[in-house]
Every structure is written in structure tokens, then in C-alpha cells.
């Protein structure tokens, strides 16, 4: 993928970072208990700064289903049509665990460099 001069058009590098980590954030959300799509979107928007367009979560969920990182169950809901509940799978757990290990190292390394004492302007 070409970065170069198109970087300015794309805006912050955080855009790509968000995209890379978003699916793992979703996996983390369905790790403990099963959750339905709208709830997942809400948690992500509440966390702040992770989602720009909520609609793009749905393609992401579809991809996680296809990759079998999540399984889904349809359940009746009191307020309307049946909902699809998402839960992580063993494969999803493995992928998430690998990501977490990588992320912690990555986050600490970047943090160390950009937030190091003396690195801020006085």
C-alpha cells in the first residue's frame, strides 16, 4: 500500500492504527459474555475515539464471523426482532492473546519514546 504523498489526504496515522486494532477491541468485548451488535457498537463509541462511522462495524463483524473468531446465536428480544449475540471462539481467543502481547510491547515502546521526561517542550 502506498503511503508517501497520500498521507496528507488520509489525515492522522491514527486512522490506520484504529483500523488495525478495532477488530481486537471487538474480540475483547465479546470475550467475557455474549453481546449483540448494537451493544458492541455502543461500547466502542463510549470508549471514545475508536470508531468514526458506526456502520463500518458491521462489515467487521461479518469478517469475524467468516474467520470464525466469533460465533453467533440468535435470541428473542422483548423489544423487537430476534438479535444476534456474538461470543468469542477459541481461535478468536488465540488471535486476541497474540495481539495483546504485541500491543502491550508496541504501546510501551511508543509511550517510552513520545512521553519520556524531557521530551515535552517547556
Amino acid at each position: 500500500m502506498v503511503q508517501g504523498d497520500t498521507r496528507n489526504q488520509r489525515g492522522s496515522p491514527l486512522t490506520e492504527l484504529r483500523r488495525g486494532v478495532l477488530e481486537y477491541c471487538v474480540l475483547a468485548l465479546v470475550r467475557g459474555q455474549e453481546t449483540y451488535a448494537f451493544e458492541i457498537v455502543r461500547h466502542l463509541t463510549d470508549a471514545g475515539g475508536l470508531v468514526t462511522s458506526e456502520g463500518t462495524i458491521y462489515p467487521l463483524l461479518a469478517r469475524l464471523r467468516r474467520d470464525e473468531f466469533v460465533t453467533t446465536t440468535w435470541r428473542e428480544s422483548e423489544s423487537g426482532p430476534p438479535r444476534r449475540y456474538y461470543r468469542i471462539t477459541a481461535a478468536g481467543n488465540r488471535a486476541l492473546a497474540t495481539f495483546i502481547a504485541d500491543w502491550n510491547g508496541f504501546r510501551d515502546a511508543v509511550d517510552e519514546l513520545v512521553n519520556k521526561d524531557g521530551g515535552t517542550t517547556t
Partner: protein
Amino acid sequence: MSSDQTVSDYLARLRSAAVVLPRPRQSELVAEVGEHIEAALEESGARDEVSVRNVLERLGSPDEIVAAERYPDDPTDPRAQVPPSAAGARRSAGRSMETKVVFGLVLSALVVVLAIVALSQGPSAALFALGFALLTPYVAIPLVIGLAVLFWSQDRERESAAPIAGALESAAAGARTRGRRSSLGLVGLLAVVALLTIALVAGHSDQIPTLAVFTLPVVVALLVTDILRGRGRKDG
């Protein structure tokens, strides 16, 4: 109710943008987004025009959503900015063009050979010759290499990771397995079994050992291709 109309218009635009997606996914995506809109409006407690527009604003444009579906690793890809129908047609036309040419050539060659044999020696001989021609190393190995290259390049293109998140992506991609594609090795094995059965039925059972020897390298090559495809994906 103008706000219901706004929602219907939005979903209609999503439906038409989604034509570039696989059929089953088209209606599924529209349904999911539709349910989201309903849930969001219920959450906000209001269905007036302003509330609806807010919900749709947060949802993003239909083109954005479809782009996220088609280019999961980079919805800002310039190809995604083109109106989806044009980009989709161009992209799938390019892909299917190569495939069509390759298969067209192979198929025509086979049909010609078959026709010649059938005309001179009868249909069961033609069937036998078909199997034999397909599976001799001189034909099969270039064919297998061609197919492997085709499949492999399609896999790689679909899995290109964003550079900044690349370090994270490729490490985790090792855990990702997409075992949904058909195994070439299995297909090859079935073809060999079919050929040997034809040989037996057509009264060429004395040829079976020779055939087995010829076809074994092909099956091995196909299985190796499967492994390489799997490993190629694992390494991101």
C-alpha cells in the same frame, strides 16, 4: 412521515451500493444496518428528522460502509473512493478476465483433443484420453503452477495489511486460518481416482500401474501447493 422516508432513502442507497458484494451478504448487511437504525432511534427516544439525521450521520455513508466491506484493510484506498459500481466492475472484470483467459485456453485445448480422439476411436476412448491428457505431468504441472500462481496472488491481494498496523497485523495473522478454500490436493486425488476407475471400466486395467506412476507427482505437486498457500497466508 418524512423521517421514515429519510431512513428508507438511506437504506435504498445502501442496497444499491451493496450490489458489488456477494449476494447473501447484500441483504444481510442492509438488514443489520436497518436494525441498527431502529435500535439507535429507540435509544434516543425520538424519531423526528433531526434524530434520524444524527443517527445516519454517525452511521456513515452507504459508500463508506460498503467500502469497509470490500476493502477491509483500507477503506481509504483510492479504488474505494470511486463510485462502487464502477470500481467493482473494473476490479472484478480484471480478476475474472485473467481467470477466463486461462480457463478458456485450457478448455479449448481439451475440447479439441477430445473431439479428435472421439471421432477416430469412439467416446469411451475419448473419456480415457481426457483423463490421461489432464493428468500427464507435461500438461498437469504447468497447469498446476498456473492455478497456484493465480490462487496465491488472489490470496495475497486480499490480505494486504496497513503498514502502520502491519507489525500487529502480521503477528496476529499467524493465528488466522481461512480453511474455506477447496484443497487442490483433494481435487487432484479425486481426479486420479476417477481416472483409474475409468481405466478399469474401459478395460485398460493393465495400464493402471503406469497411470498411477504418472499421476502421483501431480497429486504431490497439488498438495505442496496447498501447503504453500496455507503458509503464505500465515506469514502475512
